[in-house]
């Protein structure tokens, strides 16, 4: 995060990071509380709400996607780390640029196509459960992939700057 253009940009990034973290914690808390309530309802009052079940399943998706956003920010996505160990510092700089830009393209495509799915459900006014429209529940997909794309654009820029700097020094 050291390459932010200026202090204000840096602060903005910090605020966004705070929002992501808070949402993640809130979603997990909601999941735990709802799951607990559901068990009590089912075993004590012999009645569960099907809405709660649907809501819990949606929460899994949302927690997963927001978790993926934070994993992107902290570069903690699962990857195979075999060759990088044996690369020279210089080669690693090139590889960084390529990988970051690759993720930008893939996540950009995922964002576009999940937005298209959302628009179809929006136009069709499909309902997921109760009166909750499907598009609202799906919205986490385009949003998450947008944020991940932006994040990796930033990483790409940083890795290009690092590469140019290193070449300038050589």
């Amino acid at each position, binding site marked *: 995060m050291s390459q932010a253009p200026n202090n204000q940009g840096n602060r903005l990034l910090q605020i966004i990071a705070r929002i992501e973290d808070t949402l993640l914690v809130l979603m997990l808390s909601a999941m735990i509380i709802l799951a607990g309530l559901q068990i009590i309802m089912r075993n004590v009052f012999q009645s569960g709400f099907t809405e709660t079940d649907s809501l819990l399943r949606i929460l*899994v998706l949302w927690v997963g996607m927001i978790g993926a956003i934070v994993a992107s920010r902290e570069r903690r996505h699962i990857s195979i780390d075999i060759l990088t160990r044996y690369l020279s510092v210089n080669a690693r700089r090139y590889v960084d640029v390529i990988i970051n830009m690759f993720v930008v393209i893939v996540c950009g495509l995922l964002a576009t196509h999940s937005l298209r799915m959302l628009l179809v459900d929006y136009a069709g006014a499909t309902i997921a459960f109760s009166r909750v429209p499907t598009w609202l529940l799906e919205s986490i997909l385009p949003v998450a992939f947008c944020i991940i794309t932006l994040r990796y654009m930033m990483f790409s820029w940083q890795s290009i700057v690092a590469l140019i700097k290193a070449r300038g020094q050589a």
Partner: protein
Amino acid sequence: MILFGLALIILALLGAPLFAIIASSAMANFYMADIDLSVVAIELYRLAEMPALIALPLFTFAGYLLGESKAPQRLVQLTDALLGWMPAGLAIVSLAACAFFTAFTGASGVTIIALGALLYPALKQAGYPENFNLGLITTSGSLGLLFAPSLPLILYGIIVQQMNLDQSVTIDDMFIAGILPGLLMLLLLIGWALYVNRKTARPLQKFAWHKVRAAVRASIWELPMPFIVLGGIYTGFFAVSEAAAVTVLYVLIVEVFVYKEVSLKHLPEVMRDSMILVGAILIILGVSLASTNYVIDADIPTKLFNTIKEFVSSKLTFLILLNIFLLILGALLDIFSALVLMIPLLLPIALGYGIDPVHLGIIFLANMQLGYFTPPVGMNLFIASHRFNKPVMQLYKATLPFFFILLFAVLIITYWPSLSLSLLGR
């Protein structure tokens, strides 16, 4: 297309996030087949349609929470009081405690960090050889993977369920199937510990009731947990997702409010940390649903099966090849990615050879457990090297005997299906 695939493999080996690799291969395949790419998004959304999946975030969080508390110390104290009187007592204590802890925390390296830090110095002080200790701790980091409620067992059940096979597999089945193979691994390692230290290892202490009482008193609040969770699951009182919710609530109350070892202030950080792992796993599961959809649409498992069938006619030969393949896979890929990527391909083929889906799951996970410390890239080798500040080469050497012992166990598990299936009556 072949060039594109090759490029993806190289990118993956260079450390590109696996979810991006899988997503791009799925999109490329759908694009070539003239299928609208929004199908990838539709498949991703199916993450919200799997009722059992909630067990994954809940158990992961519970595991992280346990790792943050002093539960590991209490666990060691208790196993020590119960098993410390045996010859090579401390080694046996280590193995049993690690297996138990790994089952509850998922084999994500937490065991080595949380328990290894306690056990390694203790083993050293008790006079066990250094390489034995290093090997023991590193191996124990994935021991217990086959015991409920470990995350990989749950994930295997979830993946198989959404494949809609004729033969059903429930997560409960997996929990029961893992018991005997898991015990086999544990017993073989205990045997090895006894053998290596046959001359030197004296019992830690005599069995003493007052020690047991003290240890039980210390962990009195945590003791009911395995009984509630495992008892609840095995008797069918709880569904797995409910058991996960009960575990989380129980662990939260005990560690935060009773023992007060994790402060409320620290709690959000633990939540966040655990959910990063969950996010990393779920996004891979999500995009692999899309790639699996293509794989099945294109009938690839059947084609693969027909090709393999030409060269491999017997079930036995297939199992041998499977073992070799999974060992390599386990050293390269983490267990979660390996599961979501390979099971949809492997399972139909294995079924073609008449292998029970539950048995395949146990074979797969047992091999993957080995992969955690298979040189040169097993993850736990690096975690242990980092944690104990030892060169990776020394860890390669230290884990080698353990590797061969567990390899022997994996072979027994593979070629003796009843070990996994008899408790299920399959």
